[in-house]
């Protein structure tokens, strides 16, 4: 199961956070800070998995932005590793070349994308078109 899904930039600022199990708000900030510290301390030629406390972090770096996913022992590391890339690809498709600002300005939309892909800590959808379908409907409604 996926425990949390984070996007944090190199400065340690959270750009997206989704917890699939409740975590106290002050603990969230602490956790995010530690997680990013862990990720930053690693060089690019090191593997993308970190064993952190009682879960595992799977992360990927895109420019200045880290996508970090916390998982427990039942989740497959490789699957999550691919999921991250899948997620970024979907963002890329929707925003056409996504940037950190896109994510900040459209936090709610990014959440919709994430919620379509991961539900209740499980990977639920990986098809790009099906992921974006609800969002396109929403955009159409907004236009009208």
């Amino acid at each position, binding site marked *: 199961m996926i425990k949390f899904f984070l996007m944090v930039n190199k400065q340690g600022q959270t750009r997206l956070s989704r917890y699939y199990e409740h975590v106290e708000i002050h603990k969230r900030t602490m956790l995010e800070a530690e997680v990013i510290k862990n990720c930053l301390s690693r060089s690019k030629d*090191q593997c993308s998995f970190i064993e952190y406390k009682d879960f595992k972090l799977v992360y990927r770096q895109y420019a200045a932005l880290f996508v970090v996913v916390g998982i427990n022992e039942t989740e497959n590391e490789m699957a999550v590793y691919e999921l991250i890339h899948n997620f970024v690809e979907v963002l890329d498709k929707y925003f056409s070349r996504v940037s950190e600002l896109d994510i900040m300005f459209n936090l709610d939309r990014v959440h919709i994308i994430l919620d379509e892909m991961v539900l209740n800590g499980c990977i639920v959808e*990986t098809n790009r078109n099906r992921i974006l379908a609800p969002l396109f409907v929403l955009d159409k409604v*907004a236009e009208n």
Partner: protein
Amino acid sequence: MALKMVKGSIDRMFDKNLQDLVRGIRNHKEDEAKYISQCIDEIKQELKQDNIAVKANAVCKLTYLQMLGYDISWAAFNIIEVMSASKFTFKRIGYLAASQCFHEGTDVIMLTTNQIRKDLSSPNQYDTGVALTGLSCFVTPDLARDLANDIMTLMSHTKPYIRKKAVLIMYKVFLKYPESLRPAFPRLKEKLEDPDPGVQSAAVNVICELARRNPKNYLSLAPLFFKLMTSSTNNWVLIKIIKLFGALTPLEPRLGKKLIEPLTNLIHRYVTTNTALFIQHCASIQLCVQKLRILIEDSDQNLKYLGLLAMSKILKTHPKSVQSHKDLILQCLDDKDESIRLRALDLLYGMVSKKNLMEIVKKLMIHVDKAEGTTYRDELLTKIIDICSQSNYQYITNFEWYISILVELTRLEGTRHGHLIAAQMLDVAIRVKAIRKFAVSQMAMLLDNAHLIASNTQRNGICEVLYAAAWICGEFSEHLEEANQTLEAMLRPKVTTLPGHIQAVYVQNMVKLYASILQQKEQSGEKEAAQEITQLMIERLPQFVQSADLEVQERASCILQLIKYIQKLQIKEVPVAEEVIALFAGELNPVAPKAQKKVPVPEGLDLDAWINEPPSDSESEDEKPKTIFHDEEQRHSRHKQPEIDEEELARRREARKQEQANNPFYIKSSPSPQKRYQDTPGVEHIPVVQIDLSVPLKVPGMPMSDQYVKLEEERRHKQKLEKDKKKKKQKKEKRGKHHRHNSLHTESEEDIAPAHHVDIITEEMPENALPSDEDDKDSNDPYKALDIDLDKPLADSEKLPVQRHRNAEDLKSPDSEAPLAEKKSKKPKKKEKKHKEKERDKGKKKEKEKKVVEEEEEKKKSSKHKKKKHKKEKEEKSKDKKKSKKKHHHSEEETTESVQNGTLDDEPLPVSSSALATLTYDIQGNLQNDSQVTVSVIFENKSTSFLKSMELNVLDSLNTKMIRPEGSSVHDGIPVPFQLPPGMTSFVLSSLICACSVGGGGTSSCCLGNDEGSTHEKLDFKLHFSCASYLITTPCYSDAFAKLLESGDLHMSSIKVDGISISFQHLLAKICFHHHFSVVERVDSCASMYSRSIQGHHVCLLVKKGENSVSVDGKCSDSTLLSNLLDEMKETLSKC
């Protein structure tokens, strides 16, 4: 008013939206906190407005701030307001905020129940979707209980988008409300075969999670998963299925063999790290390990990591196959990536054997020296200790080596794990008697060099080892060579800088040391030396008396007084040593950590009972002295008790010894199985004393463990040589006999004899300790509740709670069948022939229960019969479902009973009967498929014997035919899946009849065959299809009704019946009941009624009541249907 609105919209123009907020925060880098608090004030203002768009915007901004770490729980109520917005654009913002900040402790969450239920049943799939997503984040036990049924219904939603979400949410619901698991499980199982791969994958995910808790429950699903695994192309699903099999194979070994082939294919195709998990077969394990080796050797760090991870999983079941790759794993310890090193370390833990332990630890020690980061070094340290101490020091053949490793580890700077090393030192010294002498000498050396360990404040963690050193030197002081020197080391002023608890141990143990020195001196007659040592103590102890630590101070002053007293006696030349040493006589045995817990409660002792009555407030003070006196008396008697039981104690001791002797896990002290090694030359030959004196004593930095490695190797070599010699002798004697065996001989585990008579004292347990494994179970495990047996059949009480309203809306809930069924069955009771009816009622109820199954069957079958002539509106359909269940109808047959039945208004079902059995049946329109009706048949066994292997057959007519299982011919019957016990029960069977066209009524002759041993009975009966059978009660609104009549393409016909005496109200009720109509409108003695056939023909009626007559005008899109229907109606009405 208008002005206010304009003003409001102008205000809104100046409201910040999310983008403005983000930009603003970026522009206020210096005073971000101030800016945000200003924004929060604005948001609070916005939330006070009535406009939902403003509120939604405010909540959207709050969600962003929440992500930055600001608490927004104060806005919970506003979030709920936005959640209940009708527009989806706002609603989703509300749900997003809720999913981010609501949790079980949010009290307003209970206000959302009805809103969420409404959204779940919304016709817009995205409303439902967003509600489900939100729910997954904040579902509470209450919400789970209230909504379980709604979500379960959604699992069969028409849209896969909703189905897959509903399936996944169910897992959370199970967690929060475990009672829902059993009722919902059958449907969850069904979803494994859902046509949509997304839903399938969701179901696999959920079952995979569930199976972690109680795999046994899911064993029956193995064939299904097997099919999925071979057919699925979705890697994500495959991974989950393989994981699931990993949990199942230990329970069903045959599975493993079956899995080999598909898995081997998979391994060749993908890198699924978990494939390795469970293969029970050696051949494929080898294949796996080889594949993993390739992964680990890969330059891609991720693959390397995953390879190691999978390797550790194989290690648990097949340590041998992994051990051969030791080189590779040791190599990984050099990796620059910490994650990989940690994985490799983990692997090493499982790979050690007696043979390679020293080598591996030596490697690790080198890494300890090289390691830079303290975390990794600490990890190494704990791993070394773990590796060595695992399963009761199983792999250690030379404890001197282990002690020296521990001593070497004390050089680690800044480690947090000083206490770990200390604990190991204590444990080994206490439990391995043979090593005490050596351990004491090493500890003395540590104490001597305490300044090195304790000098640096940074090294604080490591000074814990001095605690162990001091205790060991004190407790086993009889083994000390240079006790004086050690005592002096312990009395150094520097010691006072150590932490209090260590000083306390110092103080206590220097007395032990002192006592043994005293004894030694007295025995050898060196009175002056004895007095000197006393003097030394008196001089140095005051520094501890001044300690700030209470414990140290107390002990020191106590001991100082004692020694001053001893000094007095010494001056008087009284021998004191014996008495002093008596203070510390006796041996301390290790006690198991769980010992206390395992003490059994003696019989007759109630721990919860009050020993004394709790003091009441009214008790006056005068009584108190009395109680004290009473207490004292009691205490006296208690003191006496042990004396009385001396015999009993002895007896118990004996029994305990007996038990220990029989316990294979209790390592006995004298007749040890390892004792024979004492006689081998390897035992005593290590010149322990020489080594520690000559090599390292003064230079604690020297790696001495290497010495022991070498010695150990020599020893093993010697041992081997000797054994070989023996074997050669044997070989000469028995030439050729064991030829092959001997030539293949390699040094195996068992050949390595430990260097010492390793007497590892087991930890003590209380007498009659309770054997319990429960200690390992964590009572706080949130998943424990899911440990439910799913194989047990569902009990009637196990139903998901359904929310009911008191009013008629009740009927709209699709799952409220049960109460309706009861209502129905109660009706006929008022009439005569009670007991017979009761039986029928029973049947009825069962029928209702079966109906669910039945309908599902039909659903599957309906796909084959897609002859839908008319499309129904979805909503109508769902309404039909409820109403049609309410009404019943019947048609009659010519049997005697039916005549009787004919007089009973509400009595259902015509009958066919014979000496053996009676048959009753009921026909209903099928809601799922418009070309089908369902026939429920109730059998009643009237004979005195069992009815076995019954078969139901229907002769297909032109317009009806029975739906048979695929592959069977037109003449085949359907076997009745039960046997009928004599006399009593009626059972229900439903067969499905497809009516290809609905014109009028028709009959279909059927027969029921019964083979019972030799007798072969056939019971013919006819199914009479009245027109009403094809009608489904459908509500219709008056405007729609009017439109229908206006449309003009309806055929018309009318009847008139005279001699009607019953009231109009009653009359309408009859039509509704018998012919499945609903009243559209009623004005005085005139009413319009509507119904619809299963094929979608509309039937409209205008019923008018005159003085003594009733006229019915009917309009219908099918003229034959109408005329047949009116004929039937005429018959009904004429009976009134």
